[in-house]
């Protein structure tokens, strides 16, 4: 099982993602610098959280146009599973691999804390490890996590089972409490909460370990 984590300038959850992937696969992922032209041939790519390029234009906007993204988009279109967490989700919407946009939190403040999420669709490439769980606890930590899209898009996402996670107690004003969505082919998942931070009981939870294990098992 080969995996890769893309590292943008000021990605800051890249190591956390690598730890979670290594725990799930037994092998350290490739850490791929944003300036490179190609992602190695891998089975699973993660866009990690952080503040790529300082989030100075719009969150994720500059990262979505960095050199490595052309190949990431190519591989995603070819069906390679791609997970974007937090800033990674923002990059995915800016790269138009996922619809909608992540706006400033409705409360205007950065928000960090454990969130109970409803697993809306446990029948995706990404959620096999959560089968039978109606809810999981993942932490959030973001300033721009307020998911917005036009009503038609939201209806379509819901109708096609593409809303994967919903907040029980919406922390950021997201439309229809959306915390994570997949693309129409089902191989690209973007989510604001951080499963890579709950992979051990000593860190306050193991739902994230189950999540990553499920992804890797589905790929095997």
């Amino acid at each position, binding site marked *: 099982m080969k995996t890769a984590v893309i590292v943008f300038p000021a990605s800051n959850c890249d190591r956390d993602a690598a730890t979670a992937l290594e725990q799930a696969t037994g092998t350290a992922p490739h850490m791929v610098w944003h300036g490179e032209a190609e992602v190695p041939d891998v089975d699973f790519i993660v866009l990690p959280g952080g503040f790529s*390029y300082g989030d100075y234009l719009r969150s994720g906007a500059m990262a979505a146009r960095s050199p490595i993204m052309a190949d990431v988009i190519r591989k995603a279109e070819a069906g390679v599973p791609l997970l974007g967490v937090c800033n990674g989700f923002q990059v995915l919407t800016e790269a138009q691999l996922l619809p909608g946009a992540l706006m400033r939190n409705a409360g205007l403040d950065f928000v960090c804390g454990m969130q109970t999420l409803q697993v809306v669709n446990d029948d995706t490439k990404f959620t096999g490890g959560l089968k039978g769980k109606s809810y999981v606890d993942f932490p959030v930590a973001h300033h721009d996590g307020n998911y917005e899209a036009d009503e038609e898009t939201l209806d379509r996402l819901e109708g096609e089972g593409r809303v994967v996670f919903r907040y029980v107690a919406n922390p950021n004003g997201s439309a229809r409490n959306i915390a994570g969505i997949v693309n129409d082919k089902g191989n690209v998942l973007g989510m604001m909460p951080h499963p890579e931070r709950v992979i051990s009981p000593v860190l306050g939870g193991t739902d994230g370990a189950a999540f990553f294990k499920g992804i890797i098992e589905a790929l095997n």
Partner: protein
Amino acid sequence: MTEHTAITPEIVKEHGLSPDEYELIKTRMGREPNLLELGIFSVMWSEHCSYKSSRRHLSKLPTKADWVICGPGENAGVIDAGDEHAIIFKMESHNHPSFIEPYQGAATGVGGIMRDVFTMGARPIANMNALRFGAADHAKTRHLVSGVVAGIGGYGNCMGVPTIGGETNFDPGYNGNILVNAMCVGLAEKDKIFYSAARGAGNPVVYVGSKTGRDGIHGATMASAEFDDASEEKRPTVQVGDPFTEKLLLEACLELMAEDAIIAIQDMGAAGLTSSSVEMAAKGGGGFDMDLDKVPQREEGMSAYEMMLSESQERMLMVLKPEAEDKARKIFEKWGLDFAVIGVTTDSGHLRISHKGEVQADIPVPPLADDAPNYDRPHQAGPKAEPLADPQVTIREALVTLTAKKPVDEMAAIADALVDDKISAMSGVEAAGWTVIDNTAMLYVRLKPDASAEEVSELKTAAANLAETGMVDSAETDVSENKVSLANQPGGDSMLTALASMMAGPDLCSRRWIWTQYDHTVMGDTVIAPGGDAGVVRVHGTNKAIAITTDVTPRYCKADPFEGGKQAVAETYRNLSAVGAEPKAITNCLNFGNPEKPEIMAQFVGCIEGMAEACEALSYPVISGNVSLYNETNGIAIPPTPAIGGVGIIDHVQHTARMDTALAGNALIALGVTRGWLGQSLYMRDLFGSSEGAPPPVDLKAERMAGEFVRKIIRETPVTAVHDVADGGILVAAAEMALGAGEGLALTTPVKDRKAAYWFGEDQGRYLVSIAPEEADNLVLKASMAGIQATRLGIFGGEDIILDGEDTLSLIDLADLHENTLPELMAAPHTEENTMPMAADDITKLIKEALPDADVEIEDLAGDGDHYKARIASSAFEGKSRVAQHQLVYKALKGKMGGELHALALETVAK
């Protein structure tokens, strides 16, 4: 002004130098300095850089132990953390800038302290802070709190370093001068620590990071002066932070540090290029030749003076091995950062600065770095406060009895109208309530202790008027006075009412509003997030953990600087022990007023001497620190605030104790002796406005014994939760454990007299622990064998805190009071909420939207369509305490039910 401006006494004064200091500079130079040279001297000899008022006293602090790798004097201190690991940490103040521009001031404070730590080769793994604001209701407080908190979050979150705790206090003593102290802890390899001594001549002096601009010029001098009302004009001297660049700088530095390239490295913090070059040259025993034309510049036309004194952020100065220059340049280019060779090390012992082809300054280094004045400022301590005798209050009550042959509801309406319309509005009245039995209405009126005879007769008249007008048959008013010892009971209130009021107050209310704005889980190693006795992070990839805390009790320090200094150190020792960590060393941020005033200097000296005694007794040395003096506005000094940052090590992360994990059925046991010390207690201050008496003394031997015992039982016994006892005493600590666990608590007062003093006294050296009931005897026995008094206080479980079987407080209500204070204080003024009643079906629908698997039953409690009870079963509640379950539902419904939420009683169950 130009470099060639003649130096006048006015210019010397503007640079914060005294005439004597200027004479000394001339002697050391052997001539008159030019303006640039004067500027360089002024920052190096500022209080901030030279510690000229504090040096001789700081030397009293113990700084050595077998595990100390590097004590004070470098960018940060270093301790051995076992195996190949070293822990590097420091705390620093950014008080003045944060008052002027709270967001940038706090942000750059965090940025600066992180640079201090990674300069030495460590990856920062945790941030903490110690914040002090003015009174919660002061006009500026909301603005300052929101700016500082957002600034700390804005910088630390972007850096990807978790902020795992800290402390925030409100006190009118900080109205004109807030304190923002930031602490950073980093992890390094023991044999890869980088220092600032630039040994050897002919090596390249390299500038990396951001470009230099005109921001922050003379920041160090500003930090060494008092404030007045015009201080806001100093806004241009506050630096602007760029955490993105600092994150790149961190990664680039760590990448370079993995190579064998660096001889010396120093961050450009206060006094920027000046202090970094002078300190590196001084420690290396050599000199620097620097060409300022090569300095990367953000603005055009900057003078040498501006460049040398700029405090632009995110910059580092390094001396490299000559052969490593190309390799280093490539790394910084990869990270998109400036890299410029701006000079060379020499053996001249001089700092020579050229600009535009001319030598503009030529100063011998040793006087700059080491010959700064070392003042022995006079210090005159005020009289020491005596221990507080048990205070008494006079409770004045009026009982108004109204009789009439009228039905109960009419009597109730008359009583209610009298209380609401008349009595509550009277100036001499504190509170009033009523009850009706048969034909008699009784009104209980609490009078203010100082209510005048006129105010009392006003009450009597209001009652008598009812009889005169025939509304009632008779109206009698009896006024009584009782003296109550506050050591026995909280005035006229019950113990738990007093508790609720304290826990809702600004001193003890939940800080959740603050720490939810800090990323506290990034890096994926956070074991205890903010809200515990200490923050705990695991050492990545190992089974070891680091515990960190910040603490000080300024009201103790003000009443008795020596005891207060001792207590601040002891309290951090206790915080660390309470999570199971072996306390190793401290850093500090010594925030005081103007040291030129003998009474302020006495506070400083007293606190240091107290700290020194505690550090010595607890084998807990000081390895780094910072002094912030002149914290005064318009001549009013802040309370003495020696903030202590303590660090400890947990060998096995499984042996970490938490305060929020007590289980239903567990026994609650107090460890340590309770004398009921009320002097300087929050109980006396918050409830009765008294800040009298001596603070609680710290018995350092007992403190150490209790700490060692607690750490041992965390390792060796099945204790389920541990909490140290601090502000507010045992009852507050017990309530915090109950809230954290989401379990009620039935308590029994173990003393017959001075019950309030028992529950609220702030004696030191105490802990609370919870343990399964069958293990409790064993624990009590172990404690007595260790010479520590253990007292059973009660049993966890149920929905309420119950004291002695009679006084009851609902845990959910307490949680609401405790959690709502800060959000309400910080909320923008809001318009009235929608209070339309809601149908039961709508409530069910809202709950099902948030929790689709929920089984919901709604009961209309009063049959009025306005007061409901909801029974909810959902798998989302699994593994959560009852309080957490209720809070999840309330948060899910918030904003949708408007003002109705308070009328929804919940019963939740996991399914």
